[in-house]
C-alpha cells in the first residue's frame, strides 16, 4: 500500500488553510469529519467492534488543553503542546482501562459494555463539579493571556484547522504502519474469525487494544484541536455529544471501512450532504444522513473506495489504499 494520495490530500488542504485563512473554518468543519472517520476507522474498521463510549476520547483531548490553560497559568505558548499531550495521554489511558476490561468481550457485548463510559464521565464531571462542571471551561481569556491576542486568534482559526488536518494525516500514517506490520495481519485475522485467529497463535486482546489506543489517541488530538483550540471552550454537552461516534461511523462506512482513503471521500460527502439538507430542510440533517448511510451500507457495503478497489488492477489498488 502506498499512502501518498491520502497524505497528499491532507497536506494540500493544510496548504489551502494557510493560503486562504477566510476558508479555514469551512476546511476545519469538513476536515473534522474526515479525521474523525479516519480515527474511528483504525478501531471500528480494523476490528469491526463498535464503541458507543467513543466520544469520551474527543472529550479527554479537549479537557487536556482546557485543564492546562485554566489551571496551569504562565506556560505561554508551551501550554498548547503540553495541553495536547495531556489530552492525548488521558484519551489513551481511558482506552487502556476500558479496553483492558471490555475488549475481552465479543462484538455486541463490547458495544453494550461501553455505552456507559461516555455518559458516565459526562455526569461525573457535571455532577461532581470537576473541571468547571456543567458550566464548562471558557478558554478565550486564558488563550489571549498565554499566547497574545493575535496568536490566539490565529491558533483558533488556521491553527486549529491545521491541527485537525494533522490528526487526519497522522491517522493515515498510523493506518499505514499497522497495515504493513504483523499487527495488520493479526487484526485482519481477528476481525474475520477471532476463534481461528486464536488457534493460529494470535492474542486478539493485545491487537484490539493496540488499535483501540491508537484510535483513541488520535481522537484525543482531534478533540483538543477542534473544541479547545478551535472553539476556545470546552462544554461537557458539546464534547460528550454522543452523535459524534455515529458521524464517525457514517463517514467510515460511506468511504469504506478499513480503507485509508475512504474517510476522506466519506467526510467530504457527509459534510456537504448535511450542509445541503440543512439549507433546504433545516433540522432534518440527521434523518437524511441516516437514509444516506442506510442506502450506502445496503447497496455498497464496502463503501465507495472499498468498492472502487475491487475493480482496480492490483497495481492501481496499491495507490488507493
Amino acid at each position, binding site marked *: 500500500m502506498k499512502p501518498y494520495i491520502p497524505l497528499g490530500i491532507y497536506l494540500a488542504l493544510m496548504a489551502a488553510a494557510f493560503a486562504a485563512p477566510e476558508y479555514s473554518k469551512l476546511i476545519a468543519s469538513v476536515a473534522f469529519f474526515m479525521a474523525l472517520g479516519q480515527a474511528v476507522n483504525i478501531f471500528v474498521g480494523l476490528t469491526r467492534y463498535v464503541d458507543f463510549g467513543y466520544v469520551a476520547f474527543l472529550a479527554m483531548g479537549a479537557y487536556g488543553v482546557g485543564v492546562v490553560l485554566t489551571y496551569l497559568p504562565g506556560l505561554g505558548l508551551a501550554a498548547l503542546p503540553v495541553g495536547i499531550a495531556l489530552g492525548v495521554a488521558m484519551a489513551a489511558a481511558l482506552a487502556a482501562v476500558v479496553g483492558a476490561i471490555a475488549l475481552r468481550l465479543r462484538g455486541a457485548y463490547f458495544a453494550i459494555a461501553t455505552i456507559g463510559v461516555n455518559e458516565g464521565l459526562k455526569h461525573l464531571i457535571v455532577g461532581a463539579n470537576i473541571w468547571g462542571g456543567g458550566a464548562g471551561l471558557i478558554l478565550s481569556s486564558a488563550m489571549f493571556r498565554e499566547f497574545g491576542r493575535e496568536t490566539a486568534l490565529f491558533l483558533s482559526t488556521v491553527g486549529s484547522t491545521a491541527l485537525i488536518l494533522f490528526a487526519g494525516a497522522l491517522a493515515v500514517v498510523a493506518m499505514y504502519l499497522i497495515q504493513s*506490520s*504483523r499487527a495488520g*495481519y*493479526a487484526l*485482519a*485475522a481477528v476481525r*474475520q*474469525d477471532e*476463534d*481461528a*485467529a*486464536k*488457534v*493460529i*497463535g*494470535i*492474542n*486478539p486482546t493485545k491487537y484490539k487494544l493496540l488499535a483501540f489506543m491508537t484510535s483513541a489517541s488520535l481522537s484525543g488530538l482531534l478533540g483538543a484541536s477542534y473544541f479547545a483550540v478551535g472553539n476556545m471552550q470546552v462544554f461537557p454537552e458539546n464534547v460528550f455529544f454522543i452523535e459524534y461516534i455515529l458521524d464517525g461511523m457514517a463517514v467510515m462506512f460511506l468511504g469504506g471501512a478499513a480503507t485509508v482513503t475512504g474517510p476522506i471521500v466519506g467526510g467530504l460527502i457527509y459534510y456537504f450532504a448535511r450542509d445541503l439538507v440543512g439549507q433546504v430542510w433545516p433540522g432534518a440533517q440527521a434523518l437524511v444522513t441516516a437514509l444516506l448511510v442506510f442506502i450506502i451500507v445496503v447497496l455498497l457495503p464496502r463503501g465507495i473506495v472499498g468498492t472502487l478497489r475491487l475493480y482496480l488492477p*492490483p497495481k492501481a489498488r496499491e495507490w488507493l489504499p
Partner: protein
Amino acid sequence: MTLLKVEHVVKKFGGLRAVDDVSFALDRGEFLAVVGPNGSGKTTLLNLINGVYKPDEGGIFFEGVDVTELPPYKRARLGMSRAFQVPRPFPESTVLDNVVVGALFNGGYDLRRAREVAEEALRYVGLYDKRHELAGRLTFNELRLLELARALAGNPKLLLLDEVMAGLTPGEIDALVQLIRKMAEERGIAAISLVEHRMRAVAQLAHRVIVMHQGKIIAEGPPEKALNDPKVVEVYLGRPWR
C-alpha cells in the same frame, strides 16, 4: 520420545462427561487417529489439547511442559497447529496472506521470512498458483489444502486435524492422505486426526488408533487390531470392519 501427554483429563458440560478420564501419550512424528461416532467426545478432546477448553480434571503436557492452563494462542506458539473440520479461512484475505498469518504467529517468523515460508507451504500443497486469489473464492477441497498449508507454515511439532476428510471425494481423500503422510515423514510432524467415517483413510494414515465412546477410550492399538476389537465392533461399528 514423548511429545504430548494427556493425563486423566475430564471435561464436563453440565451433567454430561464429554471427555471422561482420558489418558494417552503421543511420540514425535507419530500419527494417531481418534475414532468414534458423533458425540463420542473426539472434538472436545481436540479442544482440550489445543486449549479452546480447559479440563475440569487432569493435565496436558507438551514437550514435558504443563500447558493445562495456557490459552490457545500460547499453545499455538509452542508448536501446535490445527486444521478445522469446516475450513476456517480468512475469506477476505488472499490465499497467500492466510498462510502468512500462520507463519507469522504460529511459526513466529518475521514478516519477510513469513512470506517465503508461506510461499513454500503453498507450493507444497499445490496452491501456489492461486496465491493471489481471495480465500473466499476457493473450492472446498482447496480450502482443506489451504488449512494444511496454513498449519504447515506454522512450523508445527503437532498437527491437530479435525475430521479433515469429511466432505471430500475418494480421489481427494487419497491425495490428502498422501500429502499428510508426506508431511509427517519429511518433517517429523506428529499428528492427531479425528475420524468419524472413512475407515479406509484411517488405515492408510495412522500408526495407532484410539477408539472413543461416550467420552472414554474403549480400544487402542494399531488400526486393524483396534478397529476389529469386539467391543468396538459392538458399540460403534455394528459389524466387523472390512
